[in-house]
């Protein structure tokens, strides 16, 4: 038994490693084998030939491509992502600072997506074909058709400027910024740790609208998948058995039919979470949210390749990890795959 576990985990680790290696290859390719001269980006176009050559050698660009790649991989594994041209700090430092902001927003978003999306999907499946089902399906379909950045803009216009319900752009009210020790980087957590309810309230207020919007997209996907899974289960014979036994209908739905889909739903939720991390790029731009997405887009506009690639790597790595872990969880938790 234990041997199988070891085999499974090592196979898993190998796949993750290979995928990550592929990601590194792509970012390396983008970084080196593309029109922009990386040396120029560092030394500027007024550098002398000597300075240019010196920088080139310092950056290891005189070696062959494969060697450069190995250097690159080794650097990344040590956390060396280069220096940002625009902030002039180490990219790694920057990323560590901005990532929690994105994490906080995405996590709240997925919570909304799950808490609303799963019941909606079940409801739609149970009342298949009727008005509730059509409405939910249409609502979920919008999640595939509406651009996130547009929804963010409109949301700000309506709920912030128009109704004054939501807080404005940014993570927290300006005068409350920096009052709380950044222990985890997650404002909600840090403010609770510090016992500062005012900061907590402000942070939550600012999180509300962007998290709701992310939650909407997550909800669309989760509701759609939940509905699909539930329809499959409700068509099974064992549901009839449950009714024959005299089980109450709500129990038939939640304790019998819903059970087998809990594990596939974990995979779905994992995929959605990964998707939110990716989608946060657009939302952060609109809400001036100091997260990794914003960092990436600002770096893009500044042609700060180190920062761009660093951020791409981190987002990509987290994305890969979440996907693979969801996959693994599925295989581990499903009792039918245990034998």
């Amino acid at each position, binding site marked *: 038994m234990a041997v199988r576990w070891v085999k499974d985990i090592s196979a898993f680790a190998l796949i993750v490693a290979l995928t990550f290696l592929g990601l590194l290859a792509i970012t390396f390719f983008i970084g080196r084998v593309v029109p922009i001269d990386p040396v120029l980006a560092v030394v500027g176009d007024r550098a002398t030939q000597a300075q240019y050559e010196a920088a080139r050698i310092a950056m290891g660009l005189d070696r062959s491509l494969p060697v450069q790649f190995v250097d690159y991989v080794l650097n990344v594994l040590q956390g060396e992502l280069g220096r940002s041209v625009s902030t002039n700090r180490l990219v790694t430092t920057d990323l560590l600072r901005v990532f929690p902001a994105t994490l906080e927003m995405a996590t709240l978003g997925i919570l909304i997506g799950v808490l609303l999306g799963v019941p909606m999907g079940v409801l739609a499946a149970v009342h298949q074909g009727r008005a509730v089902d059509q409405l939910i399906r249409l609502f979920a379909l919008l999640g595939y058709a509406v651009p996130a950045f547009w929804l963010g803009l409109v949301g700000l216009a309506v709920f912030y400027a128009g109704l004054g319900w939501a807080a404005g752009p940014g993570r927290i009210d300006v005068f409350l910024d920096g009052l709380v020790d950044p222990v985890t980087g997650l404002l909600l957590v840090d403010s609770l740790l510090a016992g500062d309810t005012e900061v907590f309230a402000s942070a939550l207020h600012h999180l509300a609208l962007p998290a709701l919007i992310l939650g909407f997209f997550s909800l669309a996907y989760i509701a759609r998948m939940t509905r699909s899974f539930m329809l499959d289960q409700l068509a099974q*014979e*064992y549901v*009839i*058995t449950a009714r*024959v*036994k*005299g*089980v109450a209908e709500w129990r038939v739905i939640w304790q*019998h039919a819903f059970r087998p889909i809990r594990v596939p739903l974990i995979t779905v939720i994992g995929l959605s979470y990964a998707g939110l991390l990716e989608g946060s790029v657009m939302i952060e731009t609109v809400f001036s949210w100091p997260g990794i997405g914003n960092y990436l887009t600002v770096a893009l506009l500044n042609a700060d390749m180190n920062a761009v690639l660093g951020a791409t790597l981190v987002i990509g790595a987290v994305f890969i990890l979440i996907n693979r872990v969801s996959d693994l969880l599925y295989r581990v938790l499903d009792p*039918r795959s245990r034998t």
Partner: protein
Amino acid sequence: MMREMPDGATDDLLRVQNLVVSFPGATRAAERIEVVRGLSFTLARERLGIVGESGSGKSMTGRAILRLIRAPGRVAATRLQFDGIDLLALPERGMRKLRGARLSMIMQDPTFSLHPIMSVGRQIGESLSLHESLSRRERKQRVRAMLEAVRIDDPDRVAKLYPHEISGGMGQRVMIAMMLIARPDLLIADEPTSALDVSVQASVLQLIDDLVTERGMGLVLISHDLSLVARFCDRILVMHRGQVVETCIASELHRARHPYTQALLAAVPRLHETRDTLPVLERDDRMST
């Protein structure tokens, strides 16, 4: 354990009169399709077999009695009475109290009709906890006793297993245990052995037979297998296209009068067969009245 016969043991357990089960047609404008057309029969504490081909309406009869048919299907009858209770007038909550406790059904394939990720013991125990309030220990004991009653060795070990970990025959026994543990009066067995290996079919049927006799239950055995039904039932109903074409006592089956039943009988090979080819059933409208 012998159940004491209530007074008036000749009272019918089940009275069905003019049962009609219909479903919507292919398009909105089309007429409703009747899969059971005016079925009538009574059942005392005896064993009744309902035989027919696929599509004859026999399974639908079973489900209609338990009121399991949901919209857009419709069930109507002049009378549908169980032990004096009018099943059609009963609200769903009342029906739920009856299901499992007084009326029960075993289905065809335990691979699909057992819950895939609940342990066997838990599934059987649920039947009990729905209708009787017992302590956990009492419930475990009853589950164990029931598993023994369906002739499963090592019941404690089996109770912890999942349905995909047990064989088909054992699965069907589990199904029987689950449906009989709350001591219902009437059992409907819908093709209980059709999905099982031939070698196991006889023992499972014998088990059903024994339990039903022991508890003085009524049994409706639905099957496509005429000889099987003839062996295990007291009376037989032959269905064709939603209607009963023949009613007879099992022992008198060979003296069936309706051409459809005769054709069914003729199509079965005998041990000492002398015919060169088996006659093929001619299905025409003259067979259903």
